[in-house]
Each structure stands twice: as C-alpha cells, then as structure tokens.
C-alpha cells in the first residue's frame, strides 16, 4: 500500500513534458492509460503514440524519475489497445497549438488519413493551407504550408 494517492500521481505526471513537444504533458497527450497505487509498486501504464517512436524510452525514464520520490515505480508500455489522437484532451489540443502544431483532425482515419477539411494555420488561423508532406520530422507529424502568412507548419497526424 502506498502513502501517495492516485490523484497525486496523476498530478505529478502532468508535470512531465513530451520530449519532442515540450508544451504538452504526457497526461494531456493521452498516453497514460492507468495509474495504480494499491500495491507496493506504483504502476503506470503507458501507450506509445507511434510504434516506432524513439521517445518511448525517454518518457519511461522521465516517469520513473518524477515518481521515484513516492516509492518504487513500474512503467509498463502497453500495446493491447491502440493509442489514437482522440485521446488527446481539449487542453492538450491547445498545448499543441502553442507549439505551432496544428491539432490532429477528428474523424475516422481509416477512411480519411488526410483531412478533407482545411487545416487552419496555427500561426495566423487562415485555412488557405496546403499539405506539403504526409511525413515530417517525427513519425507523428505532417508538413503543411500556409499561403496566407507564408509559413510552413506541422500538423499532429491523426492515427
């Protein structure tokens, strides 16, 4: 039995930024599925955003370090349920925008991996934008160009 509560663990996890997009934390990114404090070990279940994401190990280490003062920690990476961009919270979508990243389009990506709706530019809000590349600097991003403010920008891919 832990002296720390589940709420305290969630609160602490909210302080851990995503290593590649530091304006968003791991909780609002939706990658923490479950926290359990009932046993001797604090158990955190984490869902990777992309299977080949190199940040998985970094985030696992960051979580262990942040929760370490509360007691022994076990971080389990789970694959039995896919993380999807629908798991990003409303606050998380705003945090992406602050990083200059357009939030992922909503809807069934199995039918439309590329949004049929125009993607608003995170800098100026214009919808006069075009996709430049389905792929980007990390597995989870696509590259766009805003014709209004003439800025390239990135979008968090819907998966």
């Amino acid at each position, binding site marked *: 039995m832990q002296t720390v509560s589940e709420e305290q663990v969630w609160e602490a996890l909210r302080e851990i930024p995503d290593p590649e997009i530091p304006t968003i934390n791991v909780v609002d990114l939706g990658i923490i599925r479950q926290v359990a404090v009932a046993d001797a070990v604090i158990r955190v279940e984490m869902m990777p955003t992309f*299977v080949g994401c190199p940040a998985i190990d970094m985030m696992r280490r960051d979580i262990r370090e942040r929760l370490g003062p509360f007691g022994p920690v076990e971080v389990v990476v789970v*694959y039995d349920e*896919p993380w999807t961009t629908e798991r990003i919270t409303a606050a998380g979508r705003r945090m992406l925008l602050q990083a200059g990243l357009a939030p992922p389009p909503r809807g069934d990506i199995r039918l439309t991996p590329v949004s049929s709706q125009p993607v608003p530019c995170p800098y100026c809000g214009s919808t006069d934008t075009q996709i430049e590349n*389905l*792929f980007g600097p990390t*597995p989870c991003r696509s*590259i766009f160009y805003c014709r209004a403010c003439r800025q390239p920008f990135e979008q968090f891919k819907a998966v």
Partner: protein
Amino acid sequence: MTPEAREPLARYLLTIADDELVLGYRDSEWTGVAPIVEEDVAFSSLAQDEIGHARLLYTLAAELTATDPDQLALRRPKGDYYHARLLEFRATPKYDPSGQHQAGGDWAKAIVRRYLYDLFDDLRTEIIAESSYPPLAAAIQKVRREERYHLRHDEAWWHALAGGPAEGRERLERAIAALWPDALGLFEPAPGEERLVAEGILPLTTAELRLRWVERVAPAFARHGIPLPDERAAPAVGGRRGEHGPGWDELYDEMTMVRRLEPDGAW
C-alpha cells in the same frame, strides 16, 4: 493456443518482422539521396515506422521463444531470416567513400516495391487483426493505423510516375517487369501456417491472399493502361525458408556490422 502452435506462430511473427525490418533498412538508404528533399523526409519516416513495427513483432516472437528482440533482430545467422526476396535488394546508388558512387539506383523500383508490398501487407494485417491470439491482434491494429499513411504515399507516387513524362512511365514499367516474380514471392507461406489456420490464430494462409491482392493491384494498373503481368508467372520463392540473393548478403553484413564489432555493446 496449443503447444504445437507456439513454434509456427513464432516463425510466422519472424516472417512479418523480417519483412518490415529489411524494407525499413533499405528505405532508410534514401535519406539524403531521394529525388526531392520531401522524399528524404518521407522515406526516413517510412523506414522508422517499419523498423518500429519490426521491433514490436520481434517482442511478441521473443515472448514465445524466451529470447530478446535484439537477439532476433540482429544476432541470427544469415540464413535464419525469412523476409520475401522482393524486399532485400538495394534501390539506391551504392555509396562509396572515394566519391565514385556506383550507378544503378532506381526510384521507380523503390516505389513499385513499396506499393506492391504495402498492398500485400494491408491484406495480411487485415486478416491478422482477426487473429485469436490477443497480443498479435491488438498490436496489429496499431500498425494498421500507421500503414494508412504509407499506402497513401505510395499511391501518390504510383500515379505520378505512371501519368508523368515518358521517362518516369518507362522506368515504372521496367521496374514492374523486373520485380514481378519477386512480388509474387510474397505469397510463399511460412512453414506451419496450416496449424495456425486450424487453431484460428490465422484466418487464412498467406498463399490465399494472392487472389485478393491481384484484385487490389489490377485497378491501379488499369487506370493508367499498364498491362498486368501474368499472375501465374513463376514466383521468386525461398525467402520464407531463409534462401536469399546477393542483396541480402550485402545488407546483412551492413546491418549487423556494429553488433558484430561490439556484441554486448549497450547504448
């Protein structure tokens, strides 16, 4: 799952993982030498996704065989890799430190390989998603969501080359003719697939996907008036039994080089 199914399942998982690993390595070779910078980015991402998928599948196989994913990915003997032969040849020019790079790279071959393979892999992952082995069915759902982007990318290039100026179209048709027997080799089954089908771990054998694949491939050819090669042509088989060509000799040496120099290195 019965004890008799463990070994065929581990072998089947290795087959898929090896496909993804080998294609991932080969595609990573385009980084910096693709025809446009956007494709340097795209192929780097494609490669990273595929190697990530391989890691996940090696992890599942390692759980069945009491080993670890690195052992499976980089420490098996050369003849114990089971990828299809289509995936092992180098499509880029060969880099040489002297600056005298060898010619022979072909973007059209890279695109044809990706497209024909991804159409196959889409059908394969579709049936695996129905597997009665829960860890596999769940993991593959995640993989499928990422592969949507790959197919989208392949299709764009297929249409660009097929509908573009004469050289692109000619190269595309030459690549199709050259790779067709290798593409048919994708349907060579892994040993023991019948056992997996009998237990519901696999809904269909790999060979049974061939007709569905032809149905998917045919419209892409027809749309541009490209004649569909003979689907009863002799496939280039052997890959699923560990028999490979010179492309694999070269790639195996390169991808296991660091591991062989520092077998227990950690980083």
